[in-house]
């Protein structure tokens, strides 16, 4: 738009310059005509002067004037080359001028031959007047013509100028309007931006309160679960004490009963041998009674071992919930030293399994010492526990730091874990592989719970018979603010 306006005004300005040029041209033509007439008159007066005085001064003047007339005519012709009317006029002008010049030349000739009166005669008889009249007419024509074209060109130039100024004014107006519109648009968009900003701030606030609420809810739910687990495991223990207690009482009763049976048997058969006061009465019983006593013992044994197992599970849950309620205290820990300590405590098992434990340089972190100790000792225990039988163990502890986190790896060359079981092994009471080692399936669940509470993650890469690598990522500096408010 603006470009179009500027182009138009540039074109118009050019046009008006051209128009002005034409006007000037017209004025020039008129000047030239006047100059021509002037030269002609000069020639005439010089001729007359020569005729009167015969002074060579006048002749010279006449000659220059005549030459000037010819030159002026030429110049005039070249100037008015653009106007056919004027060309015609110049052609008509040619003849009287030539006539006049001829007359002047002839009278000069007479004067040269010292026949001034003859020359005067020539000048008198010559139709100079007529010729001059005709010439003047033509010049008048030309002047009129030039005036006409001057007027026309002036008009055109005025028109163009007017147009140019109109266009300029319109353009300026347009520019002002556009500026106003753009200011309005900018205002509107900035207002919209401000609105959006304040809305966003509100939303942020809302979001924060929402997150806070949710966090509080989650914390409450977590606390609830912890309490629940604690109470349940605690209350389950009570009946267990009874079951175990009366089972043991039953066992004692069994001893009493079978001892009495044995005594009666013996009393019936022969003299009583000895009053059995040992618990073990089986050798004294024979046949069906012995079988009965053994069945009794077997049943009681199963009950007792199941109760023992249940007690271990309940204790594990209790410990987990207790650990979940424990407050962590971050301290600076030299992990390498800590692991060296753990390795020293398992040296016996390591020697039994012919395993070597290599500790590579490890980063120090700020975290809860007890938790870290439990994490690593569980993992190292596991590594030692599940080595391949007959293969010397090679356990490596590696570490590095990355983006504010410490990454530890505990790698072994043990029996490995089927990839299908990688998720399972982290679940409470779940185990994988050949069940030839004692255990409740608690260690890894516990370790993962600790790692999570410490703001870290843990994963395993392993294949059957190819060893396992447990990777733990922990923050280099554990902040007390997160996740400690649940006790």
């Amino acid at each position, binding site marked *: 738009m603006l470009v179009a306006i500027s182009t138009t005004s540039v074109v118009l300005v050019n046009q008006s310059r051209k128009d002005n040029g034409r006007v000037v041209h017209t004025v020039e033509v008129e000047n030239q005509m006047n100059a021509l007439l002037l030269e002609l008159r000069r020639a005439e007066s010089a001729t007359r002067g020569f005729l009167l005085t015969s002074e060579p001064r006048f002749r010279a003047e006449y000659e220059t004037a005549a030459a000037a007339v010819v030159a002026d005519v030429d110049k005039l012709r070249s100037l008015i080359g653009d106007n056919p009317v004027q060309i015609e006029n110049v052609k008509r002008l040619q003849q009287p001028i030539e006539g006049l010049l001829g007359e002047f030349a002839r009278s000069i000739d007479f004067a040269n031959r010292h026949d001034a009166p003859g020359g005067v005669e020539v000048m008198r008889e010559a139709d100079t007047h007529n010729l001059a009249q005709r010439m003047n007419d033509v010049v008048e024509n030309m002047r009129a013509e030039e005036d006409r074209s001057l007027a026309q060109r002036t008009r055109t130039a005025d028109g163009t100028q007017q147009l140019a100024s109109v266009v300029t004014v319109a353009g300026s107006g347009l520019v002002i309007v556009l500026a106003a519109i753009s200011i309005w648009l900018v205002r509107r968009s900035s207002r919209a931006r401000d609105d959006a900003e304040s809305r966003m701030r509100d939303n942020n606030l809302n979001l924060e309160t929402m997150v806070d609420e949710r966090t509080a809810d989650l914390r409450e739910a977590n606390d609830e679960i912890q309490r629940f687990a604690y109470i349940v495991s*605690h*209350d389950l*223990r*009570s*009946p*267990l*004490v*009874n079951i*175990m*207690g*009366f*089972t*043991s*009482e039953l066992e004692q009763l069994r001893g009493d009963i079978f001892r009495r049976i044995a005594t009666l048997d013996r009393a019936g058969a022969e003299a009583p041998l000895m009053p059995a006061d040992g618990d073990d009465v089986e050798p004294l019983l024979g046949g069906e009674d012995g079988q009965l006593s053994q069945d009794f013992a077997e049943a009681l044994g199963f009950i007792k071992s199941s*109760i*023992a197992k249940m*007690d271990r599970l309940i204790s594990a849950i209790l410990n987990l919930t*207790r650990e979940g309620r424990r407050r962590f205290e971050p301290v600076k820990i030299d992990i390498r030293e800590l692991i060296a300590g753990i390795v020293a405590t398992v040296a016996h098992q390591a020697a039994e399994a012919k395993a070597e434990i290599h500790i590579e340089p490890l980063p120090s972190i700020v975290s809860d010492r007890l938790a870290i100790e439990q994490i690593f000792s569980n993992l190292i225990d596991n590594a030692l526990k599940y080595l391949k039988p007959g293969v010397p163990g090679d356990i490596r502890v590696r570490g590095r730091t990355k983006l504010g986190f410490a990454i530890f790896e505990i790698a072994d060359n043990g029996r490995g874990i089927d990839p299908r079981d990688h998720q399972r092994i982290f679940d409470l009471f779940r185990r994988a592989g050949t069940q030839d080692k004692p255990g409740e399936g608690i260690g890894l669940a516990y370790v993962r719970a600790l790692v999570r509470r410490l703001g870290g993650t843990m994963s395993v890469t392993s294949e059957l018979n190819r060893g396992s690598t447990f990777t733990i990522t922990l923050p280099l500096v554990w902040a007390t603010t997160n996740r400690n408010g649940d006790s």
Partner: protein
Amino acid sequence: MSKPVTIVMIEDDEGHARLIERNIRRSGVNNDIVPFTNGTEAVNYLFGAGSRHKGDALLILLDLNLPDMTGIDILRRVKEDRHLKCAPVVVLTTTDDSQEIKRCYELGCNVYITKPVNYESFANAIRQLGLFFSVIQVPHAAP
């Protein structure tokens, strides 16, 4: 030692009560055992109806998880009572939470025993308690 010591057993689980009684008897303690299965009755017996126990020598066996109140309340009241504060209190419960144990000792419990599921340990603990009963001097409640 005009009157023998009476053992007040506050235990809501009758099975536990029976096991405790049996094992106390096995350890050769023949003192009277007065059992209560809830806190309210025990409180009535200890604090209610005037000062019945003036001059009585009492030993209290206390479970912490009672259906109607927590044993800790009873412990506190016993230790605040002018007549009973000298009576030995043995807390016998399933809780092995260190916070709980600490609290009981702070309130003045004399012995804290966790009931182990393992019966041998359980019986052992009670028998040792019986041994303890046979050697301690229980003062008579202040008149």
